[in-house]
């Protein structure tokens, strides 16, 4: 079964701006799905419509087979949302925010406290349960929104840039947590500007630009379309000019640092062999750019040029 089906979704705002131009999307049950796009592409509008925060102009949305118009309450009860902006009562204690949210889903107060404890412990916020939300750090506030979104145990969790502005340690911990709840059966839709986050977490991906889906495929298929990769090599001895290797384009960017562009059909072994023959040992190697980032930039550029042509 599909966790989310979107058909021909349109949104035109009152000022005439057409944010969504008939998007179609299908997210399978249990998927970890990335919805990416540049700022203003329509991601947040699409998410707001799915979460009933924005009225759509036309189209259909169904959650686990329940139509958001005709079976509204059943559909809504299966969604959890972690929005981009903090949207809780800053003056309320942390535990009450969760208990109230559980109550809106019909969970009795006693059970709601148990659920709140469970969620807060999972997100390492139990010690802060009596603290007013405004006193939490930025990372804690993000985790509070995740805990709140999970308190009614949704089948579909939508995370709109959940790790924005949090430090790398907390981000890694949150990735681990997201992987864990996904492995327990929760379908996750993630939007993020950290493309390494999408690459490492998501199995399928859609890229949205100018209100249209410009690509929807599996992450592995998308990455396989990458024709070239750029690597940075740290070498053993200082050089004054870039080594010349047939078939490879190398550039010296520091006396002991070289950048190389490798075509998909080229092997890394032959690159290393050629360097070794010239007496250059490679001490370490890294991607110059995140692989998904390169594809993302290419697809968005292509979409922009198509938009301008049409």
């Amino acid at each position, binding site marked *: 079964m599909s966790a989310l089906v979107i058909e021909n979704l349109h949104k035109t705002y009152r000022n005439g701006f057409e944010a969504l131009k008939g998007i179609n999307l299908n997210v399978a049950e249990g998927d970890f799905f990335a919805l990416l796009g540049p700022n203003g592409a329509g991601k947040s509008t699409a998410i707001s419509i799915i979460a009933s925060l924005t009225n759509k102009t036309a189209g259909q949305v169904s959650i686990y087979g329940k139509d958001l118009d005709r079976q509204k309450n059943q559909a809504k*009860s299966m969604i959890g949302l972690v929005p981009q902006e903090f949207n809780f009562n800053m003056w309320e204690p942390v535990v009450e925010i969760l208990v109230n949210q559980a109550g809106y*889903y019909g969970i009795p107060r006693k059970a709601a406290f148990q659920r709140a404890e469970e969620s807060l412990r999972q997100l390492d916020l139990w010690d802060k349960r009596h603290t007013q939300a405004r006193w939490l750090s930025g990372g804690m506030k993000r985790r509070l929104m995740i805990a709140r979104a999970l308190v009614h145990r949704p089948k579909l969790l939508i995370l709109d840039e959940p790790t924005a502005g949090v430090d790398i340690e907390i981000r890694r911990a949150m990735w681990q947590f997201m992987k864990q709840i996904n492995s327990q059966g929760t379908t996750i839709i993630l939007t993020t500007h950290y493309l390494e986050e999408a690459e490492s977490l998501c199995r399928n991906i859609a890229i949205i630009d100018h209100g249209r889906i410009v690509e929807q495929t599996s992450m592995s298929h998308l990455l396989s379309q990458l024709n070239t990769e750029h690597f940075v090599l740290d070498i053993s001895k200082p050089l004054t000019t870039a080594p010349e290797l047939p078939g490879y384009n190398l550039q010296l960017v520091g006396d002991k640092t070289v950048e190389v562009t490798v075509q998909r059909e080229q092997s890394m072994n032959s690159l290393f062999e050629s360097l070794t023959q010239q007496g250059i040992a490679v001490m370490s190697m890294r991607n110059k750019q995140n692989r998904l980032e390169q594809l993302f930039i290419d697809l968005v550029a292509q979409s922009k040029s198509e938009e301008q042509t049409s």
Partner: protein
Amino acid sequence: MSAGNVKLIAYQTIVTKEVLRFARIWVQTILPPAITTTLYFIIFGKLIGERIGMMEGYSYIEFIVPGLILMSVIQNSYANVVSSFFSTKLQHYIEELLIAPVPNWIVLAGYVTGGMARGLIVGTVVTGISLFFTDLTINSYSLTLLVFVLTSILFSLAGFINAVYAKSFDDIAIVPTFVLTPLTYLGGVFYSIQLLPEFWQQVSLANPVLYMVNTFRYGLLGVSDIDVRIALVIIFGFIAVLTWYSLRLLSRGVGIKE
């Protein structure tokens, strides 16, 4: 769990949240009206009132007590909903409700009940304070209670509509200052409209607060400037219209959805 239970729990959650909200800040919500009304009783009831003499067969303080009680109900029911619902919009935690399977009528009922709770608590406190200044006679318990409750419902609804349209704190202050307070003061709280010239008596009949104050006064003292049956029809009519309009605003997402 049945759909009915889910709705009931959602309703209870909103009401509990609303009551806890104003109870936590009782120094801002319960205490000020108690102090203000005490001053009204001292200044208008005792100091000036004793020189005014009788009004419609009652001492002046006995005459103004019903109006002052109802004024506190009106102001506090209104203030509770307008400030609370506007805050939910301003801080975006209205989204907690919008995303959840809570029908619009439950949202409205929850906020209105919160407004009623504050209006009725403050009204009860003011009633208690009035006992220090005069003996309270009750002509009809049922009518007094009915008007007490209906008034708080009506002004909670009005506060809700104000909050829906409000875009800034100015917007939630303008209506109470320039509409609600004049209507209340000119609604027969401090005088009988019989004292006014004929023209102004007719103008006063367009003021809905007049009907509530007089019906409440009739419940307590047994005297009224207007027919109580007509007043009840008008109060129920206002509640029906404001409820319909509030639900329409919610269903269209005015002020809360793009």
